[in-house]
């Protein structure tokens, strides 16, 4: 005779499913759901003094956000930087993945491992390395000056938007490689041959067959890069200077030195929704585009 608990467990699929999910569910509740709810709640409060918060409900913080030109422009800049990072990553990673998927016959895995090799070091270390490369007395500037091509160091390289874009692109490229590679590798090469056989040039075959079929990978790569880079604050804090500052640096400030937790929470919430809208728009429009292409 089974004990009752055991027999319920044996009969009920949901019971088994939830027990398998429970470690993850508990973790997500503790580190995601509760903090997010708290953040959302705080965005409706008011900071009255340095230490005190008025807990009565108000949407004033959201109005504040859109009345502060600085915050709105930082939001736009964050999106712009992320957009450029995503675009550059796609344009550089796609051909590499295409090459590995279709032209590398042996040791594809080795290629992928080698490409992701730089990403085995910590993110922070890589950011600092870019500091060494891009700095006023860094690798690029000193070499160019030594060779005699420059008299003065290029200042736009460091503590600028350019520095943030370069660093973020490099930092996230590996994450774009994998979805792109997987989607391209899945394409049966005979489809490409069939396209050529049916009278299309290489270029036309790419537009009509390869690109539409690799779209899931492209969307995956866009989301995987865009979402984390919009909110990145380490790279802009270390390499951005004033020019390359992003909204996340400001949010950090509100929770720290500036100490306006409700406004910080409201900014973070706005950013969350912006990212959600942008990603939805991206997936929707790419899908529409691919339908029109074929």
């Amino acid at each position, binding site marked *: 005779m089974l004990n009752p608990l055991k027999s319920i467990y044996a009969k009920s699929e949901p019971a088994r499913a939830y027990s398998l999910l429970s470690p993850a569910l508990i973790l997500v509740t503790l580190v995601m759901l509760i903090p997010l709810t708290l953040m959302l709640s705080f965005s409706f409060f008011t900071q009255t003094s340095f230490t005190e918060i008025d807990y009565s409900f108000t949407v004033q913080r959201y109005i504040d956000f859109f009345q502060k030109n600085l915050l709105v422009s930082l939001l736009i800049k964050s999106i712009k930087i992320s957009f450029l990072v995503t675009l550059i990553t796609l344009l550089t990673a796609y051909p590499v993945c295409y090459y590995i998927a279709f032209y590398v016959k042996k040791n594809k895995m080795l290629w992928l491992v080698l490409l992701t090799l730089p990403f085995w070091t910590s993110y922070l270390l890589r950011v600092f390395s870019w500091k060494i490369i891009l700095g006023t007395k860094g690798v690029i500037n000193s070499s160019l000056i030594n060779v005699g091509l420059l008299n003065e160091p290029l200042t736009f390289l460091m503590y600028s938007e350019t520095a943030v874009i370069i660093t973020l692109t490099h930092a996230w490229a590996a994450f774009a490689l994998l979805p792109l590679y997987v989607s391209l590798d899945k394409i049966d090469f005979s*489809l490409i041959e069939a396209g050529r*056989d*049916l*009278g299309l040039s290489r270029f036309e075959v790419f537009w009509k*067959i390869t690109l539409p*079929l690799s779209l899931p990978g492209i969307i995956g790569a866009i989301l995987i890069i865009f979402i984390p880079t919009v909110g990145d604050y380490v790279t802009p804090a270390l390499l951005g200077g004033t020019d390359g500052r992003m909204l996340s640096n400001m949010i950090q400030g509100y929770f720290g030195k500036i100490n306006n937790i409700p406004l910080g929470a409201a900014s973070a919430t706005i950013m969350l929704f912006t990212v959600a809208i942008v990603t939805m728009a991206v997936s929707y429009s790419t899908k529409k585009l691919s339908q029109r292409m*074929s």
Partner: protein
Amino acid sequence: MNNSFIQIHEISKHFGSVRAVDNVSFQIHEGEFFSLLGPSGCGKTTLLRLLAGFEFPTNGKLLLDGIDITSLPPDKRPTNMVFQNYAIFPHINVEKNIQFGLRKLGLSKEEIEKRVKDVLSLVKLEGYEERFSSQLSGGQRQRVALARALVRQPKVLLLDEPLGALDKKLRDEMQLELRSLQKEIGITFVFVTHDQQEAISMSDRVAVMSEGKIQQLSAPNELYKNPQNIFVSDFIGETNFLKASTKAQDGEHINVSIENLGEFKIKNNLNISENSFDVVCSIRPEAMKIDTVKSDWDICLEGKIRQTSYLGEMTKFYVETKELEKIITVSSQHFDNQSFKNNDCFISISLEDISLLNKK
């Protein structure tokens, strides 16, 4: 009819040190159903891909209808291919798949519609225009691939083992259908297969390939009746090989000493004139007779049945005799395991069923 419609002239294709196709020359007639037959790795698919333009030959020349196509890319050749896995574009529906190859032909909208409609009825796929590849069965996909290639009205249709993925019954149906379709539209078909039965039953002519070379090119019945070497004889159907060497020659006949059996006078189908020339004698299993009693045939051997396999319409026997280690024979009579007492049997052979093969 143009008998040198496709001219394959001293074509070789090397992949590194591998000679996939090794100095091959032959011609394909206009409007014929031509098969390239051979085991995997024999170079048949490479040869087809050379014709399609997916590979370019290391040496040699390809002419189609008098035009040198050796270095033309696939999109510039008047050939179309039915791929082994059909290669139907998964992101567009059947109708768009079929229209795909018509974009570049500069046809009017009405002409495109008409052609698509006609080809769909030709392959019996009316009503499937809106379906996607994932919503089709294997046989239907095969028809789509066929329609997509035929709609361009190519001079040559190349087929790369198109029936390999279908189940036996459907494959038999499609064989008949492909054959009648080819007759109906009159396009030259070049068909690649490893299935000898398929090649023999469908083709006007068959080229048997092995190790990058053509072993024999002839009509299907010739391949079976008069194989030119051991490879072809072994590959087309099943046969028994007996070692032998030639003795005195006498007009159309030749005296041959068959190992362990003695000397016999048989037809000199190889026109051998030398003595002591090593050859192989081949006897088809169905040409022999297996029985419980002795016969008065030219050769009658007493043997023991070592194994039988029941094939429905016939039974296959593996027999060992004093003289020969292993003989394969078939019988459509109602013999089975129980018919032979102690597995004792008699194998009878008629001399006219023995053919000589070059030892190569």
